[in-house]
């Protein structure tokens, strides 16, 4: 399993433990949408590579969060991945945050 999921009080933290968010890992990532409870934090700390097939999987999580009126945040994002997310206008829907700034969300 390349994903570790922590469920908190109205928040879900998804740690992506695969180093590639690509066509091979996309299905597993998109498949966790039904486990998103409350707002969701995606932890990219182990991720070394993201391509458009991987972004597609992330967008499915964005779509699911929007349907539920919930928010999706990204943490531990590299500078290059930030650049790619900006290119595809992803940050409007999955803002990058620092984990410490999201602690109130987790403890709420």
């Amino acid at each position, binding site marked *: 399993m390349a994903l570790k999921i922590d469920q908190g009080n109205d928040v879900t933290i998804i740690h992506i433990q695969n180093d590639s968010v*690509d*066509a091979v890992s996309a299905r597993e990532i998109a498949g966790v949408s039904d486990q998103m409870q409350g707002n969701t934090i995606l932890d990219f700390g182990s991720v070394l590579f993201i391509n*458009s097939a991987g972004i597609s999987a992330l967008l499915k999580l964005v779509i699911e969060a929007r349907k539920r009126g919930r928010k999706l945040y990204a943490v531990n994002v590299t500078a290059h991945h930030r650049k790619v997310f900006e290119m595809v206008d992803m940050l409007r829907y999955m803002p990058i945050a620092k984990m410490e700034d999201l602690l109130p969300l987790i403890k709420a």
Partner: protein
Amino acid sequence: MAKKQAPEFNDIEINIPSDLVFERVVRESAVVVAKHLGFSEERVADLQLAVSEAVTNAIEHGNNCDVSIKVGVKFFISSDQLAVQVTDKGKWDASSTALNDVPLELDMEDRLEQDLTRGMGMFLIQKLVDNVELRSNEEGTEFTMWFNIERGPNNISNLNIAMKGPDFL
């Protein structure tokens, strides 16, 4: 600034079965080549992503993930450019317009409303490379991306979509 000395080798060829797992082989090879040529860390990552997108397209759309058909990748190296050529057995129906139709910006709101999550590969490639060329006929498709070895950071203004025959290095 003195021009970088051309390496002793000038091309590298890799052929992979049309299985997406082997796209990873090509993208990691691209990293090795780019680092060897002295690309900045940022440009290495750009190249890696562009190559990944082109090879993924070739596997999925060119060869329909048929593992009996190979995707070919060639790296051509000169003193000031790296070209990466990706070939598959598919045919672009309108290759003369396909590249010109790639939007300069994505309307993500519109895409999300339509649950449209795929189809961003060519958009990213045009953002990341210095030049591209697409040739397609009944025998297959040849997609070539050029990367200037010395290039200003985040400068995409010199993007030129070439539709003529390649003037190869």
